[in-house]
């Protein structure tokens, strides 16, 4: 499946970053500082452009994105009980590009291996996944694209 290629790359980079952080310690003066090996995922996961309206449903559906479990979003204040353990998503598209948002949804561990945020498009390297979710990603490729398209509408006013 061609779509998994960027994920594999992301995981490999994520792992190498973790090793760097663990074994080499803080950067010394004069030593070249390795910046985050991967900050974005430019290539869409599907040929079909993401649909923000569908993405909005993916965002709030508790069995899909369930983004409000951890994040809050004023634009969805009609929904009760927003989480507050992760950064608010208001204006997130003014802070990150679509390519950056895509990587943050698909595999945030490529940016921060210690993050609590699940990787929504990754099925390798997981421990004891329930049978019914085994070898499946949390979201389909199209759902990721739809979600990213919705996030892309969340510009600062």
């Amino acid at each position: 499946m061609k779509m998994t290629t960027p994920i594999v790359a992301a995981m490999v980079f994520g792992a190498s970053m973790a090793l760097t952080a663990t074994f080499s310690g803080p950067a010394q003066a004069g030593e070249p500082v390795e910046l985050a090996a991967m900050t974005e995922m430019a290539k869409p996961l599907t040929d079909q452009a993401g649909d923000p309206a569908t993405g909005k449903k993916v965002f709030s559906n508790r069995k899909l994105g369930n983004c409000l479990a951890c994040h809050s979003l004023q634009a969805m204040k009609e929904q009760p009980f927003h989480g507050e353990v992760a950064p608010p998503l208001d204006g997130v598209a003014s802070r990150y590009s679509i390519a950056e948002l895509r990587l943050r949804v698909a595999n945030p561990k490529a940016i921060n291996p210690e993050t609590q945020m699940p990787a929504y498009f990754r099925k390798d390297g997981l421990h004891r996944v329930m049978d019914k979710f085994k070898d499946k990603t949390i979201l389909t490729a199209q759902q990721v694209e739809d979600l990213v398209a919705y996030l892309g509408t969340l510009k600062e006013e």
Partner: protein
Amino acid sequence: MGKTPSKLILAGCLALTACFAGKAFAADKKWGQYQVEDRRSGYTFAAPETRAMQDDNFQNPGMLWAEIGEELWEKTEGEAGKACASCHNGPETMKGVAVSYPKYVAEKKNLENLEQRINRCRTDNMKAKPWKYESKELLGMTVFVRNQSLGMPMNVKVDGEYAPFFEKGKAFYEQRRGQLDLACKHCHEDFEGGQLRANILSQGQGNGFPVYRLKWSGVGSLHRRFRGCNKQVRSKPYGYGSDEYLALELYVMWRGRGLPVETPAVRN
């Protein structure tokens, strides 16, 4: 001339400092026995009405399970023709027992929790059938026995023979699992006190178990809660009484060392 402005400001600052210091002290003491150093019982994360329910024995629905246990304590069962009371006399002899479970059992070369200890008494001493995990009988007896230690500080052993089990439990606690790729520590250490949708994340302490859970409309064991947590991160749960959960139980009870036994606690 009266007080200079600078003196007034100084006095104001001092008063303010005293006020803040007093407040901080009050916050530390706020939870009484339910907080030991930075360890906080789930009681301190529960809603006031949930706490009130636990505080009043007549309102606490978990006490119905304690009553089941109380009746069974006297009931003769099995080929040996014994009841718990035949060997242990009154239930007050169980005071202080709960605080040290799970315990290492040399002949098993393994840990044993209170549920399993009760069942071993049934099979070995009473020659009776063991109760099923999560049956009202086993929950009832476990609640009844633990309730005899109400308010006593939890104090499990983690050294000597316990050390490898402790390490195993700690490793479990820190291992990411399931499709959501979360470890116990991510919610119960990193996000303790945080709002996760409609829920406030607690420290995941075990001192109140078996608990009456409003969501369950009944009492459930710690292993049932482990299973629920594992399934929530879309991970395959382990079995009731499994080695994995016994080790995790030891680690979780150690995390709550010094917190009072609250069984049956009430949680949402």
